[in-house]
């Protein structure tokens, strides 16, 4: 009995050991446990004709999130992206947003839907008070209309009115040089298409009052065949055509219009052409299409932009899109706000975001600003140029002047009663 007592581990020893572990070991175990991640919901389109853009949004966010997490996150808390496919249906986007907030515990939303889904999500987060960044919704009224504004919603996308002022000024200059007076438009039949086209026309006429719009055609979003719209355009005998069709819709339209010879004698202004996925999908890219920059790795021509494109290309074997730079910018703004606040309190994070100025390779002068008055991004690079059939696909990029954009935007808001 006594020898057993000496060889075995006694009750007191066990208790003592347990006490020592409790004092020294458990805290160490506590430190090695990963801390609760900050869940960020990302409703976007991952299937259908816009899938490439949704995927490019997710990819760019992942690059920035990985960078944030590898630098230690927010005091050890990593960000976890919860990405879901809305299939381009606004009702589904709204349902996903609600589910992410109520069931999946998302503290923030990066709404990577276009305007159609963006407005639906906007109403969800108006109700829930979740800090949300609309990453890809470009319809101006989303933030310009004071009735749409509330403390927790921000836009990190380019905005229709900005593109329209820049595009109107550029197009008017070309129209004057080439005497293009008869114009027609073809744009998708939903809020973004209608608003952006009306705004472009307004500024085209503002800068060149002799321009006439002799016809317009409104294909529905994701329409499979544009034959009837193209014949409408060809019957109008326009000298120039404007379009804000985008992604697969733009590719299909250009392919079909080319076989009608529509671009042979008609100048084409497509604000959304200069995006790599669109440019690379068109089999025979017409030379000389006028396009606004969506995303180009050489515009702005700064090392940070080139590095972003190279890193994206290294990881995903393709080039970023317009949705990519916007998504990357959204994550950068959010993570910076989180770090400055030192937590995830929504009111504090929103307060930091409001008016935030950040160095950015996508800025017109190296910076972008989350303008406080309407919680929307300004100062990003905008320019127009003409397509060529091979890399870099767009040449003679002419940067737009933000002073002009700000001045005319303010007048436009006053005209709408939103000033």
């Amino acid at each position: 009995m006594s020898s057993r007592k000496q060889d075995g581990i006694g009750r007191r020893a066990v208790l003592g050991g347990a006490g020592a572990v409790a004092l020294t070991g458990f805290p160490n175990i506590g430190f090695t446990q990963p801390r609760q991640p900050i869940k960020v919901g990302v409703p976007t389109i991952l299937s259908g004709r816009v899938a490439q853009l949704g995927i490019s949004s997710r990819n760019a966010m992942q690059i920035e999130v990985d960078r944030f997490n590898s630098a230690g996150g927010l005091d050890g808390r990593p960000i976890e992206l919860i990405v879901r496919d809305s299939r381009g249906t606004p009702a589904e986007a709204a349902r996903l947003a609600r589910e992410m907030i109520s069931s999946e515990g998302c503290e923030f939303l990066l709404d990577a839907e276009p305007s159609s889904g963006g407005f639906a999500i906007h109403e969800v987060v108006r109700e829930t008070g979740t800090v949300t960044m609309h990453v890809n919704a470009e319809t101006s009224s989303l933030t310009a209309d004071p009735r749409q504004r509330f403390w927790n919603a921000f836009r990190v996308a380019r905005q229709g009115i900005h593109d329209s002022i820049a595009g109107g000024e550029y197009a008017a200059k070309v129209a004057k040089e080439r005497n293009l007076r008869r114009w027609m438009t073809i744009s998708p039949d939903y809020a973004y298409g209608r608003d952006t086209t009306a705004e472009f026309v307004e500024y085209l006429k503002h800068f060149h009052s002799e321009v006439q719009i002799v016809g317009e055609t409104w294909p529905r979003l994701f329409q499979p065949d544009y034959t009837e719209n193209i014949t409408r355009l060809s019957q109008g005998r326009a000298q120039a055509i404007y379009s804000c069709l985008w992604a697969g819709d733009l590719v299909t339209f250009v392919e079909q219009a080319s076989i009608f010879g529509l671009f042979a004698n008609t100048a084409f202004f497509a604000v959304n052409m200069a995006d790599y996925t669109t440019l690379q999908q068109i089999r025979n890219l017409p030379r000389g299409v006028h396009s606004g920059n969506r995303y180009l790795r050489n515009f702005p021509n700064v090392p940070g932009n080139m590095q972003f494109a190279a890193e994206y290309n290294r990881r995903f074997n393709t080039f970023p899109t317009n949705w990519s730079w916007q998504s990357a910018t959204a994550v950068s703004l959010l993570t910076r706000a989180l770090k400055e606040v030192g937590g995830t309190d929504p009111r504090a994070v929103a307060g930091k975001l409001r008016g935030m100025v950040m160095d950015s390779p996508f800025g017109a002068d190296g910076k972008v600003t989350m303008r406080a008055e309407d919680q929307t991004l300004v100062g990003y690079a905008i320019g127009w140029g003409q397509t060529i059939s091979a890399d870099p696909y767009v040449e003679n990029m002419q940067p737009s002047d933000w002073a002009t954009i700000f001045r005319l935007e303010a007048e436009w808001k006053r005209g709408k009663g939103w000033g």
Partner: protein
Amino acid sequence: MDLTELAGCVTSLSCVVTQVAAGLTIGMLLFLVASGLTLIFGVLGIVNFAHGSLYMMGAYFALAAYTATGSFALAVLAGTLGAALMGLFFERFLLSRIYGQDVLMQLLVCYAVILILDDAVKIIWGADFMSMGVPEIFRHPPLIIGGGIVPYFYAILFGITALIAIVLAWGMGRTRFGRIVRAAAINPGMVGALGINTTVVYAAVFAIGAGLAGAAGALSAPIRSVVPGAGVSILIESFIVTVIGGMGSIGGALAASLILGFTRSFGSIGFPLFVEGAMFLIMALVLILRPSGLGGKRGS
């Protein structure tokens, strides 16, 4: 509404040529899909809600074949035969088990097939849209006829679809197989009693219908996006065609397809904001005035 412009168009030869050519091409591509749908319904009594997916598969098979061979003829053949084989498989292993059951069961099975095929396409080809582009051989300047524009490729498309329509009409009207199919549509029991294997007839009809959808997908791949879910919008228009043309009537489907094609092409001039609405309005009028459709038998 811009009826003045429409009136101006119909009195201008160039406009009429352009719009008629566009209407014929749109209509004939629609006819290929809708004729398969109506053929299957007429003989098998099945409303194939998955028909649009067979159109989509035809486009993907064609794209794959074109990428591999560079031959548009092989691409169309691959799209047609691929969709026909899929249709055969679908009929033999799924639909044949629910013949005689209510339409809800048909709807469920077809919806399952739509989801499976959409996901299969995403796994194999990815979720992004793809573009075949007009084959180099057809890249010519458009034909100018009477001042109107007729794209070279559209003229080819119209020629091929018209040929398929003629072969279909001849096959159904003038061959022994056609007579058997028509007899099976009216009285399958009697056809079976005469020693004809109706199971084979049903399978063949379904494969032909699926092949027609696949051919439409393959032929339109150069000018439309190839994308998961591409069959949904064409399916809706095909149902409008079958209602206007009469369920089971190939001739009615042709007439209805051309009506819709011209509604689209001329409507874009005269009432561009009501083109979709006009198609449904025509369907509603046919349902009120002639419920069996333009080519359907009364009481069907």
